[in-house]
């Protein structure tokens, strides 16, 4: 399968980019940063190509589904989405410091997906319950949401480090300093995108639940943890509009929300307690 080979190459590209972003920021070498951006663009282009190639190959294999099912596809898709979102942010805020935090996360996800022998990279037939368009909308919105929340989490963590003066008091870390206002803005925008995507995920999931389980809401652990995540982000957005919440409280809640979303993801992927969502792993 050519797509797997390309995704392996993409993993090394992201790893190289992560190292270059770190070097560029710590040693203040602008040229290396520019090259890192260029290579990231190349990595993303290859990643997108691999995604469509995998989709095409799944049809050739007589299986035919959007490649966002199973841990391998979900992790690589999410990593790709994070990389794309990061690139959009970089072009907007004109600083590469954020890349020194986000790209290593992307690399770790890709390494875990591609080099872990426990994760099957083959295109696998799906049970009937995981076929159909509802599942495509449900899963794609879910992983785009996770990607946005991951970036929001990174921005919020940096914000809290800024507030605690950990970054500005250390000479090396000082170089990856990003103004708190900017981090807050990135975090808010990513939460807004992630919240909309999570809402789409919840509602399409409800429609699917009605068909498969007979009720819109089953209080399945994954549904429940996702609802909890949604509520936390809803509280952040409400607080921001009504009480003009900025900074610390938003950042703290954003980190809590991200933690809850990870719990929901782990249960959905079959790593934690039993759930009706377990077939999602496709294993």
């Amino acid at each position: 399968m050519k797509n797997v080979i390309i995704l392996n190459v993409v993993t090394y590209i992201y790893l190289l980019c992560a190292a270059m972003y770190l070097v560029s920021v710590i040693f203040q070498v602008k040229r290396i940063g520019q090259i890192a951006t260029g290579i990231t663009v190349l990595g993303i282009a290859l990643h997108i190509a691999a995604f469509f190639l995998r989709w095409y190959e799944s049809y050739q294999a007589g299986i035919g589904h959007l490649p966002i099912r199973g841990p391998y596809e979900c992790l690589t898709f999410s990593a790709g989405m994070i990389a794309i979102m990061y690139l959009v942010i970089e072009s907007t805020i004109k600083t590469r410091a954020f890349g020194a935090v986000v790209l290593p996360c992307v690399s770790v996800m890709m390494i875990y997906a591609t080099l872990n022998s426990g994760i099957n990279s083959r295109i696998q037939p799906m049970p009937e319950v995981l076929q159909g368009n509802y599942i495509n909308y449900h899963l794609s919105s879910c992983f785009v949401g996770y990607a946005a929340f991951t970036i929001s989490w990174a921005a919020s963590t940096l914000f809290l480090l800024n507030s605690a003066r950990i970054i500005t008091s250390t000479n090396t870390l000082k170089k990856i300093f990003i103004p708190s206002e900017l981090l807050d803005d990135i975090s808010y925008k990513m939460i807004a995108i992630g919240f909309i995507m999570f809402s789409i995920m919840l509602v399409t999931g409800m429609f699917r639940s009605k068909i498969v389980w007979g009720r819109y809401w089953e209080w399945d652990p994954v549904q429940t943890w996702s609802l909890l995540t949604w509520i936390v982000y809803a509280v952040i957005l409400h607080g921001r509009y009504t009480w003009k919440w900025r900074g610390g409280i938003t950042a703290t809640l954003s980190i809590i929300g991200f933690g809850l979303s990870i719990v929901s993801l782990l249960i959905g992927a079959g790593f934690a307690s039993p759930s009706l969502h377990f077939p999602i792993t496709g294993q």
Partner: protein
Amino acid sequence: MKRVFTTIFNQLASITLTIIVLSAISLLIGLQLATPKLQAVFKGSRWITVIASTDIFRSRVFIILLILFCINLIACTLKHLRKTVALFRVSAMLQEDVTSVSWMTSEVIGGRDVDNVLRILTDAVTRHFKKPKLIRGGSGIHSLIAERGKYTNLAFYLAHLSILTLVIGVIISLRGFTYYIDMAEGQVINPLVIFDPKQHEKRFDFALACEDFKTIYYTGTNKEMKHESTLSIVKEGKKVKTQVVDYGTSLRYSTIDIFQNRFVNRIPRANIQVITPQGEKLLYEVKNGEIFRLPEINLPIRAAGFRENSLQLLSFSPPDRLWISASPVRFFQAVLSGYQFSLVKFTYTEMTNLKVIYDPGKAWVWYSFLIMITGFFNMFFFSQRYIWATLKEQDNQIVIKLGGTSTKNPQAIRQTLEYITRELKEGTS
């Protein structure tokens, strides 16, 4: 009395209540989810035993919190109604917004040609805002006001409305149910009748025909990919709708959705003979669990259990059971005692299993989804921006104050004001 009502209403509409209710709901959800782990940690503790034996999601406290959340949403929406009405009256809106300023600048320009300065200022503002409004004051103080995106405030209502619509939809859906039908190839159910869990029947004015069913396998393997059935709705002898259904694709007609559930090989069906008190012989073909009705007395009887050469029948009023085989037998109860029942044979037919979902709240849930996404997009990605300028003639100079505010992204309003100031300086220099 009015004061008490206002106080209660304000409390019910407050964002504090929203946060408290949402936090309490989150806490209860978290508690329910963590109970198994807590049980392991606090073995034998009384409070954990009480929690573990409670279904929190169906408990009174949880339902009251959900109702309170809905009341809060409605009250909050009503509270902001006045502001929304004011949206349609520009002057009312502007008065209110002048008090909140994200950015403000002040410029002093020489010369006394106020008309020229006003023209330059209006041109600069027009590049960012449609139709700025100029208010000429009699005492040498003039104002210019402009805004855009004021209707994005309605997104707040859309978001609230969507959640209420969703709740209503889900409540209406509780009246719905799922019913399973086995159909053979070529079979027509005329009219289509489905039953809710309490065995109340719902009869439709159309027939359901199953023309074809098949199993599709993954290429080159014997692994099943999916099952499909070709179904048609027949009304007054004419096919009004035909659809190939599978697990995710339905035939939607009237208030029902029919999905493929699974393909069932060789379902046994019992051929029953009933001899009426008048000696008339009637034949019925039923599968396990199916109901048939006797003519004249119209009593339902269910095929309640299959064995190798016998079948159990169940009558409902009063409840009675009867095992039948080849020899005719009777129920004990008087109303049925004149009828003799016997099993003629079992036939085995290939059947497709269909899932009929009757969901009266589906449209509400769909519309809530559309309203929710529209509302959220508007709320997060569009903002109301408002700027104002005052010109005051003072000591042969013109003092200009520029201010503005935005519901989101105050940085953008600062950039806009900086741009207008630059234009103004270049135009008057």
